[in-house]
């Protein structure tokens, strides 16, 4: 195994140097994505103000536990990708790959739960045409699901490049970009979950 190159790393307590994970292009993409979802949230709130009864009743018919499980999966996936970054920073490539695999596993779990939830909704007689709450519910959650799929592809590609040895402790910007994009997906769901499933 090649010698592990270690950066002079600081821990909590030392004077840290400001450093930007990922390059500016990734951040522009992330801010564009969160702005897109912010606009969706504003539309949701406006629609809710015009249809208070529908939006009070809508969440009661959703499968809250599917939403909870998906939140737990996405939070755990963020944890996994953060651990993968910690591993690559100290040159532990195998550990990094295992944590990236766990990240994708959580993503696959999310997709499975979401598919089951949509099936459960259909069996309950709920679909995107039921009323405006469910139209927005499907628009928000399906859009988010698409981002999860894109994120999984990005993490998978970053994992392949890690396996091929393209990333080192000194240079792993591509992996950081994919990781930041994945965290963005989790951050957006942190708002979607209470908006759709909790606020009644």
């Amino acid at each position, binding site marked *: 195994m090649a010698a592990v190159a270690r950066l002079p790393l600081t821990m909590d307590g030392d004077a840290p140097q400001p450093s930007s994970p990922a390059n500016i292009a990734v951040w522009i993409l992330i801010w564009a994505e969160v702005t897109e979802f912010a606009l969706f949230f504003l539309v949701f*709130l406006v629609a809710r103000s015009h249809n208070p009864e529908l939006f009070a009743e809508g969440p009661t018919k959703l499968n809250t536990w599917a939403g909870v499980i998906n939140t737990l999966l996405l939070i755990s996936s963020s944890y996994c*990708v953060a651990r993968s970054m910690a591993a690559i920073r100290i040159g532990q490539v195998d550990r990094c790959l295992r944590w990236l695999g766990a990240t994708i596993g959580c993503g696959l779990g999310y997709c499975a739960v979401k598919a089951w939830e949509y099936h459960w909704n259909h069996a309950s007689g709920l679909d995107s045409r039921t009323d405006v709450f469910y139209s927005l519910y499907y628009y928000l959650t399906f859009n988010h699901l698409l981002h999860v799929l894109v994120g999984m592809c990005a993490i998978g590609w970053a994992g392949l490049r890690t396996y091929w040895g393209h990333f080192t402790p000194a240079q792993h910007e591509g992996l950081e970009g994919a990781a930041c994009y994945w965290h963005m997906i989790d951050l957006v769901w*942190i708002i979607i979950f209470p908006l759709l499933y909790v606020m009644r």
Partner: protein
Amino acid sequence: MNDKQHVVSDNALRRAWVVLILLTLSSAFIAESVDPTAGIVILVCLVVAIKGQLVVDRLMGLRHAPPLIRGMMLAYFYVLPILIALALIFPEPLRRLTTL
């Protein structure tokens, strides 16, 4: 990339993860068992802000990132929860504002 990187320890990551899990389960409990009063809405929005900050600062490791990047990410989780709380607690002004 700078030569020195601030690293969040594995223990700090694990603690952040556990807190996020607990906050999520508490939100689920609220969803299933408590009537959504104004106080509950504010509490849930506060939880959203805390979860967002934990992910941004700990899991993304932006606590010591350049202020612009960290600030813009955190602003999202300060501004949006406030807007959501206001919209849920005062729906009527929003409805009048958005009626043609």
